[in-house]
């Protein structure tokens, strides 16, 4: 039992190492296209015909190795979103942050995006968006600074 007169000792402990993780050949191609060419690429399954963004080396449904890259315009339709109102150290921008899932034209899946150039209360599911790339790009999903409303 803790003696009520004595304040319990509390230790501070960090636990997370820094990790160096390869994104693999498929992830590399996807991120390099964004970094060097401002292009968002999908990958098509030769078995079920689905186009995945972000891409995987193997179809999650068929487990077939996928190799047919598909260049997408980057424009797409918002399938859902939220407005994050709280601040956390891992967030890349200051809140409020509008996070969305955008199904790009020609893709069967949605990609995460931060929405910008639009007020939170003006965002609606079904709206059209297009990517705005950063000037300085490093090979990361954050090279897409945000998605803005488009036609």
């Amino acid at each position, binding site marked *: 039992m*803790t003696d009520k007169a004595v304040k*319990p000792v509390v230790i501070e*402990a*960090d*636990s*997370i190492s820094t*990790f160096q*993780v390869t*994104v693999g050949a498929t*992830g590399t191609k996807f991120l390099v296209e964004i970094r060097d060419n401002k292009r968002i690429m999908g990958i098509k399954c030769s078995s079920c015909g689905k186009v*995945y*963004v*972000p891409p995987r080396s193997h179809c*999650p449904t068929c487990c077939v190795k996928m190799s047919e890259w598909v260049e997408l315009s980057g424009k797409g339709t918002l*399938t*859902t*979103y*939220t*407005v*994050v*109102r*709280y601040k*956390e*150290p*891992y*967030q*890349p*921008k200051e809140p409020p*942050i509008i*996070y*969305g*899932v955008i*199904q790009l034209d020609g893709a069967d*899946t*949605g*990609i*995460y*995006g*931060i929405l910008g150039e639009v007020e*939170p209360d003006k965002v609606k*599911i079904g709206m059209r968006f297009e990517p705005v790339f950063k000037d300085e790009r490093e090979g*990361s*999903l*954050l090279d897409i600074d945000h998605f803005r409303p488009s036609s």
Partner: protein
Amino acid sequence: MADRVGIVAVAQTKFDQKREEHLTETLVHVTKDVMGQTGLEFKDDGTGIDSTVVASQDYFGGPGGIHMHYAYTVGAYRRPDERVEEDGAFAVAYGAMQILSGHHDVVLVVGHIKESVCSKNQVENLGLDHIYGRKIGLDFVAAAGMQAMRYQHKYGITPEQCAKVVVKNRTNGKNNPLVMYANGITVEDVLKSEMVADPIRVQEAKPVPVDGAVAMILACEDKAKKLTNKPVWITGMGMCYDHHELGYRDLADCDSLVSAAQMAYKMAGIKEPAKELNLAEVSDHYAYQELLWSEGLGLCGKGEGGKLIDKGTTSMGGELPVNPSGGLLCGVPLIVAGMQRVAECVLQLRGEAGGRQVSGAKTALAHGVEGPAGQLHCVITLEK
């Protein structure tokens, strides 16, 4: 193979903030409680508890490596001791499988979490994939916000219907002496509370941080009958994982829960869950989830979760009370959550649920969930 698995004892801590108590003290408390109820000890000759299955999460409880603490703390080291890094309902299922396989006869299952030692959001940010989801700064609250938005949009579920879940569960929780957040909140109070991740308001989210533990003892049929005169039988179990990439799923449809529920119902021989079950304890990490999970469990049709709460079907006194205990919205730690749903069902089926007792309950369903926007589900059906 064993015939049936019975739950012969359950123990729960109070669910509060245990900042002055080391996790091991909490573990000793619940373990001694269930062992005392049965008189069982840890034995390796088949006359006691054969193995332990422990559910926790590595960063809740301490700075990593939290699973090291259980066995030595309770006098169960140098023995079979399995660890489950996901919701506690899965640990119950794995413990039951140890018995159904004939490998063990008696299994002690424990779930524990201390949300108060760290930032829940920071840990859950690690629950997203490290290339895309984490990089962009998503966490489970943001994922839930996107799921709630999609669900409300696709099926016309209203903020008022979600708020009614909070009111129902916080009212039910007044009859549960183990939870801290039961109150007389109104729909208006919920809808006026601070927005956290649209459309989710702070009163629609499980309170954080909450600490606590649950333990239970499972036994094969013949031993269960000898250990207690009120065994509760596991009749069905099902679990299913969806893709972690939120954009690969339609978040308004919980397909993995549908699969998990169907697996459990098939095993239990349940054809019409809404009619055959007397109560359900469902993991409502957020208010909208009780409605969406009720659809996935087949307690109502797709998109009809809102009608379910409007009609009062799931209230105490309704045809199928959901979360008589008050649910997670009254403050239960994650991971412990699903196992605590099982424990509450056990108390109900034993007729020991006090003021929250569902009269004449004979069958019940417990549901656990983990991962962003309900990626993985575990469904357990029980009968007395």
